């Protein structure tokens, strides 16, 4: 299958902190790929580097055959990378509907925007009920739905999800993961960062394990789920 996204030994720094030490990974069309690892391993940094929020110092990021590293974030979005950031980061004082519309900022075709909005509301009926409410007044789960919906409004080629289950009740976690699987079935390519490794490996096709800025293990998701090291470190024995 076609490679959608590829990282070739990417190094990212925050000042003197060497957060990514040569990360290489790839995501192919139609896949769910998960990136798991402990706190501070560099998962968020990997996604932020891909979407241009931080610039890598070394290495290459190739999206659909073109180098995108060193492009600013707003240019990378245009290429078709949708990023649902850690902690949701919805706009608290825009309404739900405005949050979605700003997600489609790059689309000038009103018809297309309306269609996508309808799709998002179809996927998350909760959001339709709350469309006039301010984003900041939503519950954590609803905010996560809104953050995902907002990214979908760009109709991205690949969706980067950063810990969509964070801080949610178990029922909601299941609901969000069902949505992720559903989106994938509809053809979205997904790069999923998760602390909840068990669940992530269940829905993903392949996975990477990140440890203090380096990829230490990779492989098909079922294999990783059976791996003794992974079990011990991330799956609670």
């Amino acid at each position, binding site marked *: 299958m076609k490679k959608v996204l590829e990282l070739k030994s990417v190094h990212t720094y925050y000042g003197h902190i060497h957060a990514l030490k040569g990360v290489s990974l790839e995501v192919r069309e139609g896949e769910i790929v998960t990136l798991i690892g402990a706190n501070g391993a560099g998962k968020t940094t990997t996604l932020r580097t891909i979407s241009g929020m931080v610039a890598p110092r070394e290495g290459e990021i190739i999206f659909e055959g073109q180098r995108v590293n060193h492009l*600013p*974030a*707003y240019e990378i*979005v245009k290429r078709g990378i949708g*990023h649902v950031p850690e902690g949701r*980061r919805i706009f608290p004082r825009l309404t739900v509907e405005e949050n979605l519309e700003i997600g489609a900022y790059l689309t000038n075709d009103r018809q297309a925007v309306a269609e996508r909005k309808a799709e998002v509301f179809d996927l998350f009926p909760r959001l339709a009920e709350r469309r006039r409410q301010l984003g900041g007044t939503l519950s954590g789960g609803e905010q996560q739905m809104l953050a995902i919906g907002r990214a979908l409004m*760009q109709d991205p080629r690949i969706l980067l999800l950063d810990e969509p289950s964070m801080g949610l009740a178990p029922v909601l976690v299941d609901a969000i993961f069902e949505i992720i699987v559903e989106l994938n079935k509809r053809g979205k390519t997904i790069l999923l960062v998760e602390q909840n490794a068990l669940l992530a490996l269940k829905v993903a096709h392949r996975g990477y394990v990140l440890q203090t800025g380096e990829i230490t293990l990779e492989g098909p998701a079922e294999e990783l789920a059976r791996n003794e090291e992974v079990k011990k470190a991330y799956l609670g024995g």
Partner: protein
Amino acid sequence: MFEVLISLLPSVLLEGLILGFVYAMIALGYTMVYGVLELINFAHSEIFMSGAVAGAETFILLKGTIANPYLLLLVAIIIGGAVAAFVSVSVERLAYRPLRKRGTTNRLVPLITAIGASFFLQDLVRLIEGLWNNAFYRRYPTFDAFERTYNLPVWLGDIVIILSLFTFFFAIVYLIYWVGVRLARAKQKRPTRNTLYALSGLSILFTVLFSLKYREVLTTDMGLSIQMKSLLVIVVSLAMLFGLNWLVNKTKLGVAIRAVAQDAQTASLMGINPDVIISRTFLIGGFLGGVAGVLFGLLYTLVHPYVGFIPGIKAFTAAVLGGIGNITGAAVGGLVLGMLEMLGGTYLTFLTNGAMGTEYKDILAFVILILILLFRPQGILGQQVGEKV
């Protein structure tokens, strides 16, 4: 004596309202820029000034060509607004953006830059005007049509009186409320909807009682009168305020401005280039400031490179009064400040038997600014940045 004071009240409040509209338009520029950058753009007073001067030049240059004063005013407003918008965008591009790109985190640096830009603009305009006219004072021409005074029909006069009284009482009741909250050391930061309803109800009650009691004095035989140019100021300001309201709430650019104000990084994940939006914000704020400059020139006729300072600092006070970063707040703050200033200016003379004249009215704004900063730095309406208005 007391009756004289009250009989003056309606016209004083009306005058204050007119001045308040000018302040409101300038204040919007401060507040919008603060909203997206958390920067107090002290050069905004000079952006206002450049609009006022450009307006004067337009009037003087085209007076012979365009006979219709209303059309001439329209052209002057457009040119004054455009020049100020250009200056505003240039200041951002040449002074603030380079600092931003360098990642300066010290908040003092952009502030000092802003003050530097202010001085630069004053002297630049002085230089240009000096080369161009050999003098840097310019006078707006007067037109009979604009100077003419109209008596408001009684019903309209009554409406204006009642509205101004209401605003006046509301301001007082609110002031007492927040001083009370402050003294009680209550946790609650801003009044709930119900508190606001209660305060409004109280103000309505006062308005009704007051206007019934002083019925005779309030509506004099002459009624309320207004000059054409003041009326024009109100009409143009209202048009600008409604236009801005539409732009901020209903257009894609408006949503993008609010998004950048709330979270610029995440906005860039939506494909928004924050620099472009910041530049647009300076454009809009500059245009409003320039139009305010032309209206100011129309009211007070004399303009020069240093004319921006006092109105600028008053409009800044208005923006702080309404809660800096809050768009509605800036408009309300402008109106309230305009009225307070006129009240202070008029009644100070009376109350001190002429010992303190109207010239003290300028101090009022500074006193208010200091009081707010001491007691309620978040302003009256208090909400932050990027609000729907």
